[in-house]
C-alpha cells in the first residue's frame, strides 16, 4: 500500500497536558514538530482535573520542603514508585509551577498575592507529621485552567496541530520506532507521519470499567499501540479508585473538597475515616479511603434505599468557601446528583479514576523494554503523562500529583528529544511489511462484515472488569474474569461496524479504540492475577498483606502473554533512600 508520508523531527500523539507541555518545549526550539490529537486539544481529559497540582512552595504554611513531598509520594506509592523519578519530579515541582504561572495560568491567590495552596490527601510535613497545604489550584478547575493555558501558549509558539486525527498504530522497524500511522477523522485519509522521535501522550484508559470518572476518549490508545509493537506495559494491575465519584453518574468530586474540610459519612452519620485512619482521616491516601468506603457499604452501613453509596458532607463549610473554592463541584453536584452541597451531602462511591501503570520509561521519558533482564531504550519512542509509567506513582498515586507528572515529564520529553535530535538522532526507514503491519487493525475493521457490534463487545468488557477487577480482588474472581476476557477477545476479532463511510466516521474510531481497550484490559487481568500480594490500589482478599520479599518489583506484560519483572529504583541521587516501612 502506497501511503502519503510526512516528515517531522518529532510527532507527539495526544493533545492533553503532557503532549502540550512537550510540544511547547519543542515548538520553541525551532524543530519541526506536529501534535496529533483525536479531539481538539482543549477537549482532552486534562480539562477534567479539578483539585490542583502539588509543589512544595510553602505559600500557605510559610515553609515546605520538596524532600517532604518526595517522602509522601514514596509512602503513597506503597514503595513501588521509583525513587530517582520521584526525586526528579518533586524537586522540579516548584520551578514547574512558577513556569505555569508565568504562562498565565489563573491560579487562586493568597492575600499576599502568592499562589493559594490547599490541603490534599497524604501530604505531610517533616516526613509523615502534620498535614501540609501543598496543592496549588485555580479554584476547582485546575486542569481546565492548565490545559487552556498550555494550548494558548502553543498558539503563541505556532505549534503545528493535526486536530481530530487518530493514531492508528506505531510503525516499527528492527532499529526502533519510525513514526505513526494517522487517520484524518474528517476525511478518512490515512498518512504515515515519519519522525525522528515519536512521543506518546495518549492518557489513560478508564473506559475499561463500567463506572469511571474518565472521559469517553480515555481508551488506552497508547497501550494498544505499544503492545502491538511488541513492547511491554508495566504495573497494569494498579488502578486507582477515587473515593468520591458521584454515585450512578461516575462524575468526579475533587479530593480538594475534603482538603477544604469536607468529610465522608455512613448511614449513621458517622465520620468513619476517623476509625480507619485516625491520623490523616479523610485525607489519607486514596486507596485507603476507597477501601474503607467499600467496607462500610459491604458491612451494611451504606446510604440510600439500596445502601450502595456513602455521603460526602460539605454544608458545614458554608457558602463562602464552597462558592469561592469549590464552585465547579457545586455545579456538578446539582447537575448530576440533583443535590446542592450547600444544603445536603453528595452521594458518592469509589470510582475508577487513574492508572498508575503504563508504558515504562526513564526520567527522560524514553520508552524502555527489557532484554535479558536489562533495561533497553527503544530508539525513537518517548512517553509522558498518564500513559507512561516512569514510575512516580507506584502502586497508588497521591492526589494532585498527576497534573504535576504531566508537566514535569512532558517537559522532560521535550528537552530530551531536542538534545537527541541535536546529537544526530536520525530517521528509521520502514519496509513495506512494517507499514502493512501497522495498518492491519484498520484493514480488519474495514473488511469485517456481519459481526457483533462494537457496543456489544465494549459493554461486555466493561462489565467483566467492573465485576472481577474492582477495588477488592480474589484469585477466584480474577480467574473467571480472565477466562471471560479471553473468550471476548475471540469475539472481538469477528466484530464489525456497519458504517463504512469515510467522512467523520466515529464508529470506525470507536472500533479502533475498542481494540485498545481490550489490550489494556488483558494486560490488567494478566498482571492482577499474577501479583499475589496487596499493595497500594491492588487489594486482594486472598493475599491481604504487602509482600516485599517477593513483590517489591515492577511487573511487565507483553502482548503474547509473557510476563517479566524490573526492580524498583531505591537510589535517589541527592537524598537518602526512603526505606521500607508500614503505612497507616
Amino acid at each position, binding site marked *: 500500500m502506497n501511503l502519503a508520508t510526512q516528515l517531522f523531527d518529532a510527532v507527539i500523539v495526544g493533545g492533553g497536558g503532557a503532549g502540550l507541555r512537550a510540544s511547547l518545549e519543542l515548538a520553541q526550539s525551532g524543530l519541526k514538530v506536529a501534535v496529533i490529537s483525536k*479531539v481538539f486539544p482543549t*477537549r482532552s481529559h486534562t*480539562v477534567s482535573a479539578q483539585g490542583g497540582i502539588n509543589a512544595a512552595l510553602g505559600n500557605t504554611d510559610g515553609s515546605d520542603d520538596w524532600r517532604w513531598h518526595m517522602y509522601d509520594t514514596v509512602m503513597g506509592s506503597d514503595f513501588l514508585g521509583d525513587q530517582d523519578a520521584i526525586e526528579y519530579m518533586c524537586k522540579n515541582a516548584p520551578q514547574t509551577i512558577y513556569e505555569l504561572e508565568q504562562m498565565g495560568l489563573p491560579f487562586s491567590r493568597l492575600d499576599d498575592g502568592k499562589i493559594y495552596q490547599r490541603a490534599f490527601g497524604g501530604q505531610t510535613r517533616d516526613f509523615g507529621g502534620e498535614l501540609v497545604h501543598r496543592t496549588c489550584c485555580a479554584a476547582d478547575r485546575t486542569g481546565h485552567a492548565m490545559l487552556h*493555558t498550555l494550548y494558548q501558549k502553543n498558539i503563541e509558539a505556532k505549534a503545528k496541530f493535526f486536530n481530530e486525527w487518530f493514531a492508528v498504530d506505531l510503525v516499527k522497524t528492527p532499529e526502533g520506532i519510525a513514526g505513526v500511522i494517522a487517520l484524518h477523522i474528517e476525511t478518512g485519509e490515512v498518512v504515515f507521519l515519519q519522525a525522528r522521535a515519536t512521543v506518546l501522550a495518549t492518557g489513560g484508559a478508564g473506559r475499561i470499567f463500567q463506572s469511571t470518572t474518565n472521559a469517553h476518549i480515555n481508551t488506552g490508545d497508547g497501550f494498544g499501540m505499544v503492545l502491538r509493537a511488541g513492547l511491554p506495559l508495566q504495573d497494569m494491575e494498579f488502578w486507582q479508585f477515587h473515593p468520591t465519584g458521584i454515585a450512578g453518574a461516575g462524575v468526579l468530586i475533587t479530593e480538594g473538597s475534603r482538603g477544604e474540610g469536607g468529610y465522608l459519612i455512613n448511614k449513621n452519620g458517622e465520620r468513619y475515616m476517623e476509625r480507619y485512619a485516625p491520623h490523616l482521616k479523610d485525607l489519607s491516601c486514596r486507596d485507603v479511603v476507597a477501601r474503607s468506603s467499600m467496607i462500610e457499604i459491604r458491612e451494611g452501613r451504606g446510604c440510600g434505599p439500596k445502601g450502595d453509596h456513602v455521603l460526602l458532607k460539605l454544608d458545614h463549610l458554608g457558602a463562602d468557601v464552597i462558592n469561592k473554592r469549590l464552585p465547579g463541584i457545586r455545579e456538578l453536584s446539582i447537575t448530576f446528583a440533583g443535590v446542592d452541597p450547600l444544603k445536603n451531602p453528595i452521594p458518592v462511591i469509589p470510582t475508577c479514576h487513574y492508572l498508575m501503570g503504563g508504558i515504562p520509561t526513564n526520567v527522560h521519558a524514553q520508552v524502555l523494554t527489557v532484554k535479558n533482564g536489562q533495561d533497553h531504550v527503544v530508539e525513537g519512542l518517548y512517553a509522558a503523562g498518564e500513559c507512561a509509567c516512569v514510575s512516580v506513582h507506584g502502586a497508588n498515586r497521591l492526589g494532585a500529583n498527576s497534573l504535576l507528572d504531566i508537566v514535569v515529564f512532558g517537559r522532560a520529553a521535550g528537552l530530551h528529544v531536542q538534545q537527541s535530535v541535536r546529537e544526530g538522532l536520525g530517521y528509521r526507514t520502514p519496509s513495506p511489511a512494517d507499514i502493512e503491519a501497522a495498518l492491519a487493525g484498520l484493514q480488519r475493521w474495514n473488511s469485517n462484515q456481519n459481526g457483533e457490534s462494537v457496543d456489544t463487545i465494549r459493554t461486555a468488557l466493561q462489565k467483566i472488569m467492573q465485576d472481577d477487577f474492582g477495588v477488592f480482588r480474589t484469585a477466584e474472581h480474577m480467574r473467571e474474569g480472565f477466562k471471560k476476557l479471553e473468550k471476548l477477545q475471540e469475539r472481538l476479532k469477528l466484530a464489525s461496524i*456497519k458504517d463504512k463511510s469515510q467522512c467523520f466516521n466515529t464508529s470506525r474510531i470507536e472500533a479502533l479504540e475498542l481494540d485498545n481497550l481490550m489490550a489494556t484490559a488483558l494486560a490488567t487481568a494478566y498482571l492482577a492475577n499474577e501479583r499475589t500480594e496487596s499493595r497500594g490500589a491492588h487489594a486482594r482478599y486472598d493475599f491481604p498483606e504487602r509482600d516485599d520479599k517477593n513483590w517489591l518489583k515492577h511487573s511487565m506484560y507483553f502482548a503474547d502473554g509473557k510476563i517479566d519483572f524490573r526492580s524498583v529504583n531505591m537510589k535517589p541521587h541527592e537524598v537518602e533512600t526512603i526505606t521500607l516501612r508500614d503505612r497507616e
Partner: protein
Amino acid sequence: MRFSIYRYNPETDQKPYMQEYDLDTEANNCYMVLDALLAIKNTMDDTLTLRRSCREGVCGSDGMNINGKNGLACTTHLSSLKEPIVIRPLPSLPVVRDLVVDMTQFYQQYEKVKPYLQNTDPAPAKERLQSPAERAKLDGLYECILCACCTSSCPSFWWNPEKFIGPAGLLQAYRFIADSRDTQKSERLADLADPFSLFRCRGIMNCVDVCPKGLNPTKAINHIKELMLEEAV
C-alpha cells in the same frame, strides 16, 4: 421518548433531512440528551455522528441546538425538554456530518485576539504576584470551554463571521485585558478598534442566554468598550 435528529452525510445524502427515533430512555438509563444520543448510536443506528468527550460539561465537545436553543448535550436533562426533542447542529457553522460542524472559523476568531498572556517585563524567579481582588476579575472569563454555543447563536456573527470576532473570542480578549499580569492592554484594545471585530456586537445577548457555563460575554464586551473610551479620553 421521540427524537427528531438532523442527518447529513455528504457521501450519501443529496441534502440534509430530519430522522425520527423512538427510544425507551428509562430502559436505557438515559438522563441527559447525550445519554440518549449515545443509546441511539449504540443500539439503533451506528451511523449517527456527534462529538463527545468528558460528558460532564467541561470539555465543550457536544454543543448542539436542542429544541431550538444551543446547549451541551451532556448537561441538558431530558426531563426538562418537550417532545419531540429536536436536535440540530450548531447554527451558522458549516456541517461536516450530522451534528458535527466545522469549527475552523470559530477557532480562527479565537486566535485573532492573541489568547495568551503577554508580559514584556523580565520574568521573576518565582510567581508574579496577583492580589485576590485582581484575580477575582478573571472569574466569569477564564472558565470558557470553547463550545461555540454563544458565537453560533449570535446574529452579528451570522452576518460577519469573517470579521466579527464573536462573543467567545471577545470574552477571551477581555480575560487577558483584565489580567493584572498582562502588559499589552493598550495594544489589545487597539487591535479591536476597527468597525467589525468588536463593534458589530449589538447587545442582542443570545450569548448570555445560551452559555452553558453561565458566563456573560456581553458584559465583557461592554467592559472592553468602556476601557477603549478611557484610553481615548
